[in-house]
């Protein structure tokens, strides 16, 4: 029953949260309208979701999110430091080539985003078969280590969260 009402529960929840944020209230009214929207909008946008998100192990989020948030802040501090101190000719920018294990598209997308938001790296290209991710790194002492770091830190948890 619920499953039929909410074919895409994650999306519906998403919508509800957005709505409550927008109207800036946790009142019953807000929730009601939010739920209604949660009913309607996924239906309207159904066609545009060929494959939907399933959280296999939601609890991973609780470990992943803090890590990411922390890394974002750290990343910015680092970049800020480079921007302010490093002279251009001392920069060692490189393109990293990261073979992906994760196949789930949203996972891959999330990974790419996180990479962009975290230390000195911006993901700039998927390979044609979408199995490799090209990442530009602002200042890289050791490529292999950087790649390994990314895979352990973000790809694994994302895989756990969405696949297997």
């Amino acid at each position, binding site marked *: 029953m619920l499953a039929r009402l909410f074919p895409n529960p994650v999306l519906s929840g998403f919508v509800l949260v957005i709505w409550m944020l*927008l109207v800036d209230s946790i009142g019953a009214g807000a929730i009601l309208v939010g739920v209604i929207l949660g009913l309607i909008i996924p239906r309207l946008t159904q066609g545009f979701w060929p494959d939907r998100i399933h959280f296999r192990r939601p609890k991973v989020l609780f470990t992943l999110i803090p890590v990411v948030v922390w890394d974002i802040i750290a990343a910015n501090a680092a970049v800020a430091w480079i921007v302010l101190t490093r002279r251009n000719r001392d920069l060692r920018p490189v393109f990293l080539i990261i073979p992906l294990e994760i196949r789930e598209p949203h996972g*891959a997308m999330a990974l790419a985003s996180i990479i962009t938001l975290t230390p000195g790296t911006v993901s700039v290209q*998927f390979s044609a078969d979408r199995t490799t991710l090209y990442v530009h790194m602002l200042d890289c002492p050791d490529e292999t280590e950087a790649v390994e770091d990314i895979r352990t830190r973000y790809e694994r948890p994302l895989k756990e969260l969405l696949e297997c």
Partner: protein
Amino acid sequence: MKLLLIVLLPLAGIVLPPVLVRAGRTASAWAAATPTALALVLLAGMAPTVFEGGVVEASWPWMPALGLNLAFFLDGFGLLFAGLILGIGLLIILYARYYLSEDDPMGRFYAMLLAFMGAMLGIVLSDNILLLVVFWELTSISSFLLIGYWRHRADARQGARMALAVTGAGGLCLLAAAILLGHVVGSYQLQAILAAGDTITASPLYLPILGLVLLGAFTKSAQVPFHFWLPHAMAAPTPVSAYLHSATMVKAGVFLIARLYPALSGTEEWFVLVTVIGLATMVFGAYGALFKDDLKGLLAYSTISHLGLITLLFGLNTQAGVIAGVFHIINHATFKASLFMSAGIIDHETGTRDIRKLGGLRHYMPVTMWLAAIAAASMAGVPLFNGFLSKEMFFTEVVVESERLGGIGWLLPVFATIGGLLSAAYSLRFVHDVFFGDETGALPRHPHEPPRYMRVPVEILILICVVVGVVPSLAISTVLATAAGGVLLQAPEPFSLALWHGFNVPLVMSVLALAGAVALYYQRDAAERWHERTFPAFTGKGCFESVLAGAIAASRRLTAWLDDGSVQRNVVLVIGTAVVMAAAGGITGGLDAGSRALTPAPLPAVAVWLMGVIATVVVALRHHDRFLALVATGVVGLLSALTFIYISAPDLALTQLSVEVVSTVLLLLALNVLPKETPHESSPGRRWRDGVLAVAGGGGIAALAYAAMTRPLDSISRYFLETSVPGGGGHNVVNVILVDFRGFDTFGEITVLGIAALCVYALIRDEAHTMASADTEARHPRMLLIGSRVMLPLLAVVTVYVFLRGHNQPGGGFIAGLIAAVAMVTQYMASGVHWTEQRLTGNYFPMIGAGLLTAGFTGLASWLFDVPFLTSTFSHVNWPVVGDFEIASAVAFDLGVFLTVVGSVVLMLSQFGKQQPPVEGR
């Protein structure tokens, strides 16, 4: 009411003949005759009142603000004319039934005839001078159609065009005169104007008014020098000529002169202008008629001449003159109509109207001969026929007048006599050349008497001629008195209509005229030769044509000079003119700043301003790199949005931002098809010129804006601000104005938007392709794909939010619609046209339609509460959980706006998206 019916019956009858002509020509004729007859009966019903000196009035407001009312009144004079129009109209309908040939579209003919009849009745009955002008122009138009009835004939078309040009121009003069009159008198009511004669003649505007009125009248009644259209109008079918040029159209001019007689006459100017023109026309027309070989041409010129005579009589400023004038109107109507119809019969039976070919017809159509002869005699002013009486009165008046004038006054009777002589001469020619003399044997057809009923109208008219001519006082004097009374606004002193006034000057003049006529007729060949020697072929038509050609050529040259086909040049001209005009206005009007206290400008504002200026200048100077120009324009847009926010216009900021992005997408899509670079081709000179123009324009606008902003403002918006919440049920006044106060404008604007979208769609439909494209990483990068899909619901929620809050906070249908459109467009960009449109639930046309209908019906709904269109009704409903929630009908309207905007914007963008870059070298 009846009065209005008299006018409306013919106009309403227009539809009948074309319909009933399927049931046969006779049926069609009946269909035309019935409304006419009915109107005549109604008129007869009112006649007694009028004969007792009463006036029938009826009035309905039409455009009271303009002082234009459907006001009619029937007095003696009106009665006379209405009688002529309807009576002779009936005869003409009967006559035309037999005159028109099988292949003439009879329904159309009768329809036009009725239209003309109605217009004429309107002229003679209307009690509002503006209304009169309206009907006046109606007669011009319907007569244009009637004269050009035989479309296939070039001369008919030309004649019609000429008539329309001349009389139409006269009509415009008349309109001007009418407005001036209303201005002087303070009312457009005709009777009021007639009563205010002294005021008018005293006013400084008298001369202009007089001039304009006379221009109107003279063009209509073909007075010299505007006579030339009349002969060419003879290309019309004879019934038309008989109707228009005996009793109605040309008489309208005379009617106007007579009608406004109380208002304008009595002055020297009136006397000189009207009399002289009348006299000139009379003599000229009569002379011209003498040498015409075409029967109808002869009659046309004689008509001109007789109209001149009538005009002259009204010019004399005497009561007797008026009576004589009115009398001659009646007589001329009768004999001239019958003459035209006889001419028509002759033409119809012999196949020619050329006097030189005709001859000896008395053997074949004796009855017609008699009829024509009597009518001609009446025209010539032979005793025992009505023409004689009015001519006698005319002569009498002239003599009296000349005695009054003294000096060169004797010229008046002399010319009068000459006129009479000539008119007698051509009458004689008309009869003798056609019916007597020996046969020329040049006739296309073997002549014989016309069908019985074709002759009846003529016979009736001739009967009138004779009766009036023999026992005038019994037959006509009451009518005449009443009609003249209508003109003079008082019952005229008793006058005697008698055949015999004893031996006096007028009688002598008549005798001279008739005798001279006979003499002249027998010397006609000599006269003809003399005529050809003295007057080279010089026709009014010639001047008219040359004037026309000149005007056309001039306008062609002007157009060619203004528009040589270069858009660039036109834009320069337009903008240049605008700048110059504005500069002139600014210099004369003054653009000095006002007293309003200035608003402080914080540092950020200055910085934003600076960036904006820089970005703008870059757009202008580096526009050859189109991408850069586009991006820089984006900056300007963003900064203007910031400005909107700062000067407290949040709604505008939101709209600006959304439109900004959709236009960017649009321009990119276009750039995809257009060249990416603009070549450097403008010469330095041109660049400098444009630069100067631009700076001038910009400076002017800046000065204007500054002046506007610094001057104190007393806006009508206080009302909106006060009534927004109580009246419109919304706190966001801008939105309330859009959907409620000025909802109708908004409705119009979204309609425009929808139309524009459809045009865009239609214009490039042929080049639009949607082929399925492989879903490669190159085409649809995953990052964007997933990202946009995450965005979609988010944008949807925001749309709902912005829409719902719109009535009370920044937002509303327009902005929500734009956001939704942006969400859609994002999908298009991420996943491609094909993929997206596969997944669309509906297409955009129903969406636009639904939007417009929703908005429209919301507006109509407010009629149910009988309040004006689009008045918002709203109420506060207390929902169980949601709490106090407001429902305004305006929200429904806003929904319409929303749908229209989404549909239109996405339709346009997707259509652009389907364009393929052109194959180079095309």
